[in-house]
Structures are given as C-alpha cells and as structure tokens.
C-alpha cells in the first residue's frame, strides 16, 4: 500500500544507528522498514539556492545546510586528501612555496591579474583549479598531503563567490599530524597565521572545516544520506579551454553518495515508464558507484543568457538509486520550483525492492 507524505527534516532519525546491522554484518531484523514512497520538497532555500540538502530515502529525512558554512573537507579514509568547497565555486592555486609567510601581496596580484581563481566562462584554465566534479577525492586540486612536511605547498584559495558571499582570498597549507591533519591558514595578505588540528573521524567520510568556526557538521554520517541536491562546480565541454573543458557553476546538481555506498542508474520513460518499473527491470541496469554526477543536472533543460527560455524540468527521465543497504528506489524529479521560486525542487520516489 502506497502512502503519500510530505516529508521534512527531522534530525532525530539521523544517526540513530539502525545501520549498525550492516556494519556488524549480523542478521538483525530491521528496526524500521524502509519507507515505501513519498514526495519530497527539497529545502534549497529559495531563489538564491543557498543550501545543500542531503536526503535519505529510507527514512525520508532531509538535512539542509548552508553551502557557505564550510571551506575545506578532510578525508577520514586511509589516504590524506583535502577537498575545497565546490558548492560555492571555490578554487585553489599552488604557490610553489612551503612557508605561509612567503606568500603575500605579489602572489595575490598575480592571481588577481590572471583571473585564474574566478569561476566564469571566460576563465579558460578554470579546470586546473577545481576538484574533480565526478569523484573529487580521486583528483582534488590540493595534492595529497605528503608525509614529508616540507613537501606540502601553500595554496591560495578563493572561497567561492558563486551565489555566495564574496570573501577575501585565503592562503592555506596542510600537513599531516599523526593520523590526522594540521591546517595552517590566514588571509592571503596577512603576516600571521592560525593553526587547527583536524583528526580523522570514525563515522564521517569527510571532516568539514570552516575558517571562522573550526570543525563544523555538514553532511550526515557516512551512510545516512543517498542523494544530495546543491549548486556547485561542474564542467562543460569547451574547445578553447584547457583540456577542452571549462569548469562551470551549475544550479541544480544532484549527487548520489558514492563515498557512503549509494549507486545510481539513469532510466528513460520511453524504455520503461516510471510507473511500471519493477524489481526485475533493475537486473540489467549498471549502477554507477564512482561518478556522483550520474544524476547531475540531467533532469532539467538548462537556461541560457537573457532572452532564452527559463530552465524546465525534463519529463522523460528518472533514476534508480540503490542505497547502502541495497534498498532499490526509483526517483523522479517533478518540479524545479515551489510557488514559482527556483531553488526548491520537488521529487517523488518509491521503493522498488527492499534490500538486506
């Protein structure tokens, strides 16, 4: 029996630990059965789309956080890697220096003149200064943190001003600190810097840091979300740009949780209608586990410069999302707007098959 619900964020269920059954590998009966279907209004925050929203289909839970609330994300995995905030259009440049005090006015002027840290379609080398859009940890702009301290360079960081507050450039240097990290950071023109120790976390794939607030909570724990909606840095093919690719800021990107065990596949209505998709139809599907852009912005038609038509929802596409427990959902975006306002899309979903 299907039931239709409008679900909004309830923090209670997050982290209650009903995933422990998976982690332990024990055959414990599921405490709460996965939700069967629903309609979710994404809390993107409205016309300026200030939020990233993380959604767990099983519980219908949604967690919306401000895109600007963090600056760097430190991997808790075995590797020592750091991401910049693509959801504000952040960009970074290596300086070739290993001492923060050696980076100042000259480097700032250089970066400002070249425009290399400005995410616009006129910056043809933008792709060299952003994390990989599909799998950021596979190719982050900041080189993996080296065990040898003086191998770690200072980076000039633009904190991103795409539909976000414009903030001054930062200089940062990250070194290892035992099993964790130490971040040295300052305004790019400053002569003193601050240090912050960041230990890796057992629950979270990434530990998020804000220059102002230190370690901050951003995404739900590792497997407690399946898809997220956000604005963020993506790419567009552009022959004149470096590597034929331009980093480009998109509104309405949907990532699936590749670091938390979610996978996704694209379905066209003309092949199997959303209404009629069943468990056996999933057998032949290839679920993507490594490219978080599998869904991306493929559910809408883009808008262009002034005078071109507004973005519209595509009516012929939907997605199959498998969560970390192998629950199989079909997900279809219905609207880009709520009361006509962009930045508040709505999707429907339905459980196709229950997992483990």
């Amino acid at each position, binding site marked *: 029996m299907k039931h239709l619900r409008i679900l909004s964020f309830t923090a209670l269920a997050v982290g209650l630990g009903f995933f422990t059954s998976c982690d332990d590998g024990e055959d414990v009966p599921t405490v709460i059965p996965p939700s069967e279907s629903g309609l979710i209004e994404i809390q993107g925050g409205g*016309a300026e*789309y200030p939020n990233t929203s993380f959604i767990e289909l099983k519980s219908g839970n949604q967690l919306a956080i401000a895109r600007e609330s963090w600056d760097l994300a430190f991997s808790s995995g075995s590797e020592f890697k750091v991401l910049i905030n693509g959801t504000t259009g952040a960009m970074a440049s290596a300086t070739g220096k290993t001492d923060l005090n050696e980076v100042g006015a000259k480097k700032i002027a250089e970066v400002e003149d070249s*425009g290399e840290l*400005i995410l*616009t*379609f*006129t*910056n043809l080398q933008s792709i060299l200064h952003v994390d990989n859009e599909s799998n950021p940890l596979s190719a982050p702009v900041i080189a993996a943190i080296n065990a040898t301290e003086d191998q770690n360079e200072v980076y000039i960081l633009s904190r991103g001003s*795409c*539909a976000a507050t414009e903030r001054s450039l930062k200089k940062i240097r990250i070194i290892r600190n035992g099993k964790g990290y130490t971040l040295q950071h300052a305004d790019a023109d400053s002569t003193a810097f601050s240090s912050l120790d960041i230990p890796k976390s057992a629950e979270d794939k990434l530990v998020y840091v804000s220059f102002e607030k230190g370690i901050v909570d951003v995404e739900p724990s590792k497997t407690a979300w399946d898809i997220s909606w956000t*604005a963020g840095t993506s790419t567009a093919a552009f*022959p*004149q740009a470096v590597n034929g690719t331009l980093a*480009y*800021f*998109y*509104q309405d990107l949907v990532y699936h949780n590749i670091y938390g065990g979610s996978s996704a596949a694209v379905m066209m209505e003309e092949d199997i209608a959303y209404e009629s998709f069943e468990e056996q139809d999933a057998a032949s599907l290839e679920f993507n586990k490594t490219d978080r852009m599998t869904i991306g912005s493929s559910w809408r038609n883009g*808008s262009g*410069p*002034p005078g071109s038509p*507004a973005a*519209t*929802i595509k*009516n012929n596409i939907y997605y199959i999302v498998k969560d970390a427990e192998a629950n199989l959902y079909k997900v*279809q975006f*219905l*609207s880009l*707007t*709520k*009361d*006509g*306002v*962009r930045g508040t899309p*709505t999707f429907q979903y339905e459980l196709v098959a229950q997992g483990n």
Partner: protein
Amino acid sequence: MVGRQGVSNEININQIDINQIQKVEIVEGPMSVVYGADALAGVINIITKNRSSEKLSLQAKVQEETVGSEYSPFARRGTHIRSVSGNYGVNNWNIGAGFSQNNFGGWQGEETGRQKEWLPKDQNFVNLKAGYLKEDLSIDYQVDYLNETVFSDGTDARLEVIDQEYATNRWMHRINGQWDSSDKFALNWQGGFTNYTRNTKTRVTNVRTGENYLSKAPDSQSSIDYNGFSWRILGQMKINSKFKLQPGIDLNLESGSGERITQNEGIQDYAAFLSAKWSPTESIQIKPELRKSYNSAYEAPVVIPSINTKFRLNEYLSLRLAYAKGFRAPSIRELYFNFFDASHSITGNPDLKAETSHSINTSLDWNKELSEEWKIGAVLGGFYNSVDNRIAYGQDPTDIQITTLFNVENYKTAGATFSYNHRYKNFSGNLGFSYIGRYNQLTEQAVLVPDMSWTPEVNTNLSYTHAPWKTAFTLYYKMTGSLPGYETIIDSEGNAAATEILLDGYQLNQ
C-alpha cells in the same frame, strides 16, 4: 507616428492598429540628417488615417482569419478583428473616434503541448482625433490608447506549471500642423508624447491540487515604464525658383524605469538641422544637409552631413546618388539594463558612444509609358554601408566576471537590388531581386572565410484591381536564399578553422 524600432522598443510594429493605417511609405536612402539616430537605411512612414471630407461617417468591420490551420469562430483560435469608428466634420473642424479589438489565438508551430511559437494576445485600441483646417493653417491632434495582453503559457510539467501574462498600456498623443505664411515660407511641426507601461504577471498552477496563484519568484511580478516626448519643427523657405532652404529643430526626450534597469536620468537629444534643395536646371536636384546634435546620455557625432542628388538623364531615365554620415544611438537597454544569474553577469554600459556610419546609395530608374494603359519601369540600385563603433558585447576589463557592451567592431553591408514592374489596365506585376552582403566579423580573427557573405532574395507579385468593387487581388511570392553562416571549429592540431553552415532559406506564398 513617431518612434524607433529595432534597437529599442518604443514603437513595436505589432502594436499598431491596422484599422488606423491609411498607407505605408518607405523612404529609402540614408535619412539620418533629418531623422537623427537610427535612420540609416531609410524611414518607414506609417501614415495613419486622418481627415475625411464626409459630414458624418460610421464604419464597422469584422475580420476573421485562420492562423495556419488553426481557427474557430469568435474564440481563441485564429485571428478575430472587430472595429467601429466614426467621423464628423463641420465648418473647419473634423472629429473622429474609433475602437477596435484584435484577438489572436496564437500559433503552435513547432512547439508542443501547452506552448506556442506565436503567443496569443488580446488587443484593444481606442483612437480619438480632432482637426482644424483653414486655407493657411491646419492642426491635428490624435490620441491612441492601446491595452494589450500577451499570454505565454509554460511547458507541461508534473507538478508546477508556470504561465506568464504581459499587459501593456500605451498612450500616444500626437499633434501636427502646418502654417503657410506666404508662398515663400511655411512652417510645419510634429509633436508626440508616449507613455508605455508593461506589467509582467507570473502565475503558478499546481497540477496535482489544481490550485492557481501568483508566483513568489523574484522579478516574476514586475513592471517597466517608459515616457517619450518628441517635437520637430521645420521651416520651408523658398529663396527663388531654383533654391529652397529647410531649417529645423528636433527634440527627443525619453526615460525608462523598471526591474533590472539602472536608475537613470533618461536620454535627452537636441538637434538642429538645415537642408537645402538646389535645382540649377530642371533635370538636376541637389540636396545637401547638415545636422548638429547634442545628446545627454551618449556621445553623438556633433555634426553630420549628407548629400542626396537626382539627375534626369533623359525622358525615361534618372540617376540618384546619395551619401550620408549616419549614426545609431545606444538604446536604454544597452546603456542601463542589467542581468545577473548563477552563470551570467551582464551590465549595460552608460559610457557607450553612438555607432557611426558612412552610407552610399545609388539607383538608376527607368520608366516608360507605352500607352495610357500600359506602363513599365525598372530600378537598379546599389548600396554600401560601413559602420564604426559598432556596439557589441565584451568582457569588462575592470571585472572579468562581467559581460558588458562596448564600441568595438567595424561592420559593413553592401548590396545590389533590381526591380521591374509592369502595369497594364487593371493588372500590375512586380519582379524584384536583391543580393545583399554582410561583413563577416570572423575575418578580424584572421580566419580564412570570405570578407562578405552574400544572400540572394527574389520577390514577385501580381495583382488585379477590380475598380467597381475597389478591390485588389494580389498574389505574392517571396524566396529568401539561405544565409551563409560560419562556425569556428578547432581541428586536431588545435588550429581554428571555419566551416560554412547554411541557415535555412524560406519561401512565402499567399
């Protein structure tokens, strides 16, 4: 009717009541001295109906049209025009009033679902006029009111359908007159005041619940307001039978406000012009002209000259040669309009200069009367325009994230036209051919493409006039050749090369 179209939207040719049009005149050749900005290729005079000699006349009209194959009587589909007008003349006075309504149901074309390629619209026109005519003095006043709603339905969606309505209210006041002081001096004037407002209304329909309400998106409910005032006064001085002088003053004041338009003080344009007509012999006419202008918002050329000449070579043949320096003013949009979204930042540039141009036009006319009922004629023409300071989009050097407008490029057009017409009794036929070249801007990047790309065009018509019915039957044919376009491609070695792509030509039959 006074107004510009194209670069700015003050007079939209779609917003003129066709019932009020008496005739349309096309004055070819550069007319920038007398008409100022924008009159580069010529001037289209839409002459609206004016006085009638009858004591009292009343007219009513109903017109029903199909649009493509779409039609249903008196309802949304097709075009439905109805009008009533009346005129009353007494002594030296003449007054008139008219009302007409145009309901256009739109045309789907290649769009699907709820969307239409030509948007449906409802128009209501009101026209009032009063005129005074004596032997040496005439004054006419007219006011036109337009109320128009254009409906733009959004795409089909599973949850929210977003429809827009654009409502226009436009008042146009016009006054013109002529005073003939003697056969040596006459004065005529034209004044106009236009007020234009456009409101955009955006409605959301929730498909699942059927609810319908106003959109809450920023700028989704918006309005723009435009005011324009123009005044032209022209003197006609006859010095002797071979020499005439025409001094004049031209004032144009406009201001606009609305969403996305930078606060501005409007544009004020003041100009004085002098033109002379010298006919040393019966077969030679020479018209030199000068215009001196000042503009508050942009840099216009201070003095612009032009010369128009006509030589009658023999009974059948005459030659026209004309040169003009012309200019095109930046529009309010180009000066003040701003647009920002996630990936675009576009601003107007209040420092824009006018585009300036040099135009040369020439034509050879041949007319012959074979008999009273049989007339033939042909015109061979050529033109060349070169535009400097062309207004184009570019990157703002002070902030490379912003795209704005600059005076940058050079642009040229050239062409040849030929037309032939034939009139015999009630039949008339016309055959026209033109070959028009447009300068290709890609050549500035040293890419191997021809300097100009050329488009041919053929048009012909045949018409028969049935005098007792005052009716003309006309058959048209028009063919526009494909317009060559170029796109830049990058080859495997990273070199840019251009390939020709043809933009589809089209034909029109009626």
